Structures are given as structure tokens and as C-alpha cells.
């Protein structure tokens, strides 16, 4: 059996575990995959987070991808970072750079076994700030300068590819080279607030081809998180795991301890359990009903007869789900165009699922409906709690272009 076939049946522990430490964020990116903004009062405490690290160490999860929200705004972020590293769970964290002043940069440069990933969605301030908010380009650049001055080795620059920045790939590479950084590019998913802007931001078919050609020609040393495996149907497979790893080799622990099949699938349909449940994370990973189901052989559904199915495996589950397409059909960005046909064929009655988890500052606070509550009946909207002054972002009320 090929290795990827083994992966389809799941592993004893995840390979790629994303852990979002907080829904709080100083930015309000229009495409935020987790609809972050406000802190959730039920977030794991410092002690609970350390117990999760203990479990990950026991399960030999060798590193975690920490994100958010903006993880560094958690006051105990640096304590948890050290705790994790001390317990043989290496940390790669994604940040917009807001807290990476010269002192923190120097601290990180002294810390072994930590990777830093600075988010940047435009090689120029206008393209970046269009989606990430005013000032965010400068914040990222300052963080990269501080890391470089402190001698931090090879940070990553993490770019979500959009219609506006595909043409900037060479410029992104130049920025990475300038700071001694490694470029990482990933796919825009219609997850979280990304669903609201996906039609406008996702690369066109021609741009997908351009992106694929760029990766084949210049992609050596460029990380992709294996997120473009749907493009492998163009021909030569891209390096990496050409498979949807959701619940098989990948999962997400969200700030309140909920475990989802993938970071792009924050929705009750992909909720496997909570690290606070009896048996903790290990039991969720190894025995939850959802993950067991995801590890069954996939049939390929409508894609089975397509000659490219072996290459793309039907694409991204989350991209299909949040555009209202069937999970066993083509990816909305299927390179053969079947996804576009399926999108066009959606009728007015097609329900496009939306996550109940929304911590956007523009949304009612704690708007998640109780997951144990019966569904199907119209529920009264959750009570809206008043904003407190400290919840308000410096950017609150500033219109973000394109939103």
C-alpha cells in the first residue's frame, strides 16, 4: 500500500495539528478563516492549555502550528510557547507581527525549536491592506526587520493567494529573500469570513494555471502546506501530500478546545469533540465518530469517472462545503472547470452552510448556538452582549476596502 493510502485510514496521532489559541485579534482581515476578532470567554485557561501540550507530548505530536486569532495577544502566549518547547512539542506560530518588537525578536532568536510565520497577503501595502486592514503591511515589515536584526533564522512569510496578489509572486519571493525568510503560499478557502469574499478574491481559472506554472518553475523551497493539491490535475503532481488530510493526518483545536477535522472546517458538521471531554484530545483523535467516518475509503462520487481523480482526489472538503457543493463532487476550483459548472448549477434553494462560530467584532458576541441544542427549529438569536471598551479594535469602524 502506498503511504498516502495509509494516510487515508488515519494515523495514531496527527502529523499536522493546528491549534488556535484565541479568537482575539487586533486585525479584522476580510478573509479570516476563523472569523476572529473578539476573545471567547470560554477559551482554554493556561493550565488547560498546558494539559493539552502534555497530551501532545505523550502522543508524540512533534510540533504544532499555533494560530488564532492573533495568538501573541494572549498574555500567556510566551509562557505556553516555552512550556510546549520544553515538552518536545515544537511550535510554529502564525502572527501578523503586532507583538514582535526588538525584545521579543531577540527572545525568539534565542529560542530553539520555534518557527515564526508572518502573514502577508500583498507584496505591496495597497494589496495587503485591502484584505488585512490599514497599517498591517507596515506591521509585518517591521516584525520581519526586527527578526532579521535579532538574527532569527529563516522566518516564514505566509501568503494567502488571491486574485489581487497572484501577479506578485516574484515580488513576494524577493521580499522573502531580502529578509532571509522562506516563502509560504496557501490557498484561499471560503471558510469563516472568507466565505463572504471568496467570489471576489479567489484566483481566476487563468490565475490558477499561472500559480501552478510558477510553483513548478520556481517553487523550489517555497512551502505550500500542500494546499494546492487540487492543481495537480494540471499534470505534474506538486510536491507534498496530495490528499485531503482532514481528520486523517490533520485537525484543528480551536480556542475553546473544540476539535475540528481541519482548520478550514469550523462548523458543527466537522466538530469531533472537545479536549475538555473525558479522554481528552487523544480520545477525540482516536475514537470520535466523525474522524472514524472521515477515515473510511472515499468513493470519489461524481468525480470517480474523471481521469484526473487520482491526481486531485476531488480537492478540498472545506472549499466544497462552504460553497454549497456536495462533498463527493468536484472542488469549486476544479482545474477541469467542473467546479464552476457545479457552482453555476446551484439553485436558489441550495443552502450554503455557514459556521455558527463567529467572533467578528461586527457579529453578535458569542454567537455560537449551543451545539447540544436540537437543530432544525428556528432558534431565537443568541443574546447580544454589549461591547466593552477594551473589545473595541483601534480599527473598529474603519471601512475595509472591498468588504
Amino acid at each position, binding site marked *: *500500500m502506498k*503511504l498516502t493510502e*495509509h494516510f487515508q*485510514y488515519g*494515523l*495514531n*496521532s496527527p*502529523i499536522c495539528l493546528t491549534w488556535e489559541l484565541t479568537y482575539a485579534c487586533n486585525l479584522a482581515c476580510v478573509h479570516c478563516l476563523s472569523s476572529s476578532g473578539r476573545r471567547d470567554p470560554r477559551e482554554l485557561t493556561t493550565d488547560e492549555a498546558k494539559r493539552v501540550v502534555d497530551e501532545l507530548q505523550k502522543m*508524540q505530536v*512533534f*510540533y504544532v502550528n499555533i494560530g488564532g486569532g492573533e495568538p501573541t495577544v494572549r498574555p500567556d502566549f510566551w509562557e505556553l510557547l516555552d512550556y510546549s518547547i520544553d515538552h*518536545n512539542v*515544537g511550535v510554529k506560530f502564525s502572527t501578523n507581527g503586532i507583538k514582535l518588537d526588538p525584545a521579543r525578536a531577540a527572545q525568539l532568536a534565542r529560542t530553539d*525549536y520555534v518557527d515564526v510565520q508572518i502573514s502577508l497577503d500583498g507584496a505591496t501595502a495597497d494589496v495587503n491592506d485591502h484584505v488585512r486592514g490599514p497599517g498591517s503591511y507596515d506591521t509585518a515589515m517591521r516584525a520581519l526587520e526586527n527578526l532579521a536584526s535579532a538574527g532569527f533564522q529563516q522566518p516564514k512569510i505566509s501568503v494567502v493567494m488571491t486574485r489581487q496578489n497572484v501577479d506578485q509572486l516574484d515580488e513576494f519571493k524577493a521580499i522573502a529573500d531580502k529578509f532571509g525568510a522562506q516563502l509560504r503560499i496557501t490557498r484561499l478557502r471560503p471558510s469563516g469570513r472568507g466565505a463572504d469574499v471568496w467570489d471576489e478574491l479567489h484566483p481566476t481559472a487563468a490565475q490558477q494555471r499561472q500559480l501552478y506554472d510558477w510553483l513548478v518553475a520556481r517553487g523550489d523551497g517555497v512551502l505550500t502546506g500542500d494546499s494546492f493539491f487540487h492543481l495537480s490535475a494540471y499534470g505534474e503532481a506538486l510536491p507534498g501530500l496530495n490528499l485531503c488530510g482532514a481528520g486523517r493526518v490533520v485537525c484543528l483545536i480551536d480556542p475553546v478546545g473544540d476539535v475540528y477535522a481541519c482548520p478550514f472546517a469550523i462548523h458543527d458538521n466537522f466538530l469531533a469533540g472537545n479536549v475538555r471531554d473525558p479522554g481528552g484530545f487523544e480520545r477525540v483523535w482516536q475514537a470520535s465518530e466523525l474522524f472514524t467516518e472521515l477515515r473510511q475509503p472515499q468513493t470519489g462520487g461524481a468525480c470517480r469517472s474523471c481521469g484526473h481523480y487520482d491526481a486531485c482526489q476531488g480537492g478540498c472538503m472545506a472549499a466544497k462545503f462552504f460553497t454549497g457543493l456536495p462533498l463527493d463532487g468536484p472542488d469549486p476550483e476544479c482545474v477541469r472547470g467542473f467546479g464552476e459548472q457545479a457552482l453555476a448549477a446551484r439553485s436558489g434553494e441550495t443552502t450554503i452552510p455557514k459556521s455558527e462560530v463567529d467572533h467578528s467584532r461586527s457579529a453578535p458576541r458569542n454567537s455560537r448556538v449551543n451545539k447540544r441544542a436540537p437543530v432544525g427549529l428556528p432558534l431565537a438569536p443568541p443574546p447580544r452582549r454589549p461591547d466593552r471598551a477594551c473589545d473595541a479594535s483601534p480599527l473598529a469602524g474603519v471601512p475595509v476596502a472591498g468588504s
Partner: protein
Amino acid sequence: MALRPEPFGALVYHFGTRKLSFLKTPQLVDVVTGLERHADVHDAIEAAGVDLAQRPAYLRALAGLADAGTIEPRPTTATQNGEPA
């Protein structure tokens, strides 16, 4: 370096290089874990009972692990035998 048992064999992780590799069969796990007990890679492969026909593939897998810095030649035996580690 740490080995994590998996249904296909094991994941091997090197904390220094941060390289993650896959040992794709249980026999390869036996070979790798046996390296320290044997004089050279051939002994370790022999001891794990790897089929003759499969041995070139196993040597290639070990060479890959050595290239990644996940396993290292023992200076004395490697020079004496002139084996690729």
C-alpha cells in the same frame, strides 16, 4: 530523534533538523532501530530479515535518512567498511 509507531511503520522525527520522515514498513522500523546494535547497515538489514530483492530499496531509504541528517554514520565503522551510511 524520536520514533512514533504508525499503522504503516513509523514516523521518525529529528528534533535538531526538524525533519519528519516516514518509515514505510514495519521491517524498515526494525532496520533503523537495529542500526545501533549492528556493525553496519547490511547486518541490520539481514537481521531484520529483509528479502534480498527488497534490499536495494531499503538501502535507498537509509541513504535518504542519512541525507536528511536523521541517521548518521558511525565514524569508525563507516570508514573501515567504506559503506554508504
